[in-house]
């Protein structure tokens, strides 16, 4: 098939369209049947949980949110609720929404490729895995009082008291935090001018800011687990 583009003469127009009926409809129909059979079979074999009548006076231990929020509940170990429960999920949603506007690489539109968009795919897939690793830890490895248990350990109320936590001195914390974002923003731009120039300052700062925040949550976890750091920045008003 040919289409006449204005003033450019003839251009090739590849028409790879196929009839929806029966190619697509048949597959959709089969998928619907498989999903229905699968769900009904699973429902026949496995009962949905129903515990005893709710009792405000007797807390479940551990009390867990639905599994898909347990990554955030797991983040509560390392962050205050305003961050783990409100700011972090909001940042994730905003970050997801911004993706199409931050990723201006025209390649890889409509096909699988890693080579042509290494940065985008790596960041997204790592973030995706990070989310589900936290969900897994929160779901399977956290027992009473949110204490950590390996899969082969039995959940018990009798576990050693965790070591005491301490805060970083405030000036050090502020310097580290600002240094982290400063270096994280400036260094990649200097090493890879091309990357910075392509994105422009606004997209670059948003992209790297969100990425650094994601990396920052991992660093905070490492600091907490290796050095018993509770807060990097501790003030009477807000703690991070």
């Amino acid at each position, binding site marked *: 098939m040919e289409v006449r583009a204005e003033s450019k003469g003839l251009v090739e127009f590849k028409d790879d369209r196929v009839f*929806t009926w029966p190619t697509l409809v048949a597959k959709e129909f089969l998928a619907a049947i498989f999903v229905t059979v699968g769900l009904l079979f699973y429902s026949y074999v496995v009962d*949905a949980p129903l515990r005893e*009548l709710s009792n*405000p006076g007797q807390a479940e231990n551990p009390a867990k949110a639905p599994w*898909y929020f347990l990554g955030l509940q797991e983040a509560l170990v390392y962050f205050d*609720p*305003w961050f783990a429960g409100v700011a972090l999920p909001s940042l994730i949603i905003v970050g997801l929404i911004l993706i*199409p506007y931050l990723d201006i690489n025209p390649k890889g539109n409509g096909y*699988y490729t890693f080579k042509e968009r290494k940065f985008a795919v790596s960041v997204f897939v790592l973030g995706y895995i990070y989310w589900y690793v936290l969900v897994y830890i929160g779901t399977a490895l956290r027992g009473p009082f949110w204490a950590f248990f390996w899969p082969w350990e039995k959940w018990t109320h009798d576990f050693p008291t965790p070591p005491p936590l301490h805060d970083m001195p405030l000036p050090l914390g502020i310097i580290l935090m600002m240094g982290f974002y400063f270096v994280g923003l400036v260094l990649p731009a200097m090493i890879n001018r091309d990357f910075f120039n392509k994105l422009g300052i606004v997209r670059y700062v948003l992209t790297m800011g969100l990425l650094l925040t994601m990396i920052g949550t991992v660093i905070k976890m490492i600091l907490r687990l290796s050095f018993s750091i509770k807060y990097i920045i501790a003030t009477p008003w807000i703690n991070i």
Partner: protein
Amino acid sequence: MKLIPDLIKKITDNEIWKSVFRHGYTDTPRNRVLQIISNVWLHLHPAKVREHGTKIRFTWCMGGITFFIFLFETITGILLMFYYVPDVNRAYADMVDLMYVVPFGRFLRNSHRWGAHAMVITVSIHMLRVFLTGSYKPPRQFNWVIGVVLLVLTLLLSFTGYLLPWDQLGYWAITVGTNMARATPLLGHEGPFAYILGMRADNDIRFALLGGTTIGAPALLRAYVWHCIAIPVIASGLMMMHFWRVRKDGGISGPL
């Protein structure tokens, strides 16, 4: 053997059959088009789609399955509504009845519950697929945004349903979840800078969500109404936009 053609002729060559099915089917390009555009359910599709949109190894079929599970949940949910009253004195007893008394009640409840979990999983895999195929790239940027909102609504649908059994599992899960709202900066009474707006336990954002300072009768009713009416209506509207824009943007993927 003329048995089968004869049988088909007997079944189809009469007034009743023809009153239901307006035309026969012979496999011609014209009829393939008519199958789609003259069927109220199927005309959600265009008559022709780009080939990669029909390949399961490309689409993983996850968006379609997510939509299908939404329909599945709607049907099982409506059936459950016949047996369940969102009243703190009745809700749990209704659940026990569903599990032990109502014919197929246990089966019904199980399939609604597992369907909800399945939908959270399929919608997240759908997002991964859309990302990996770069399908959010122009001209589909805004459809990705709608998709993210639908993902959040899927989680909220599941979350609001979690409280309804009114058992310990749901009660404390919702307690943990909504306690986060308490810590919202500015708007939650335990959040940073809440004193600026004068937030207390009985006027902050958590209070607005629960209709009280603890999870009680108003919270159950709110969860129920959000779960059965408000979120499904909002999600349906956004799904219409989502699917409509897939068509207007020239299919599921690739440059226009």
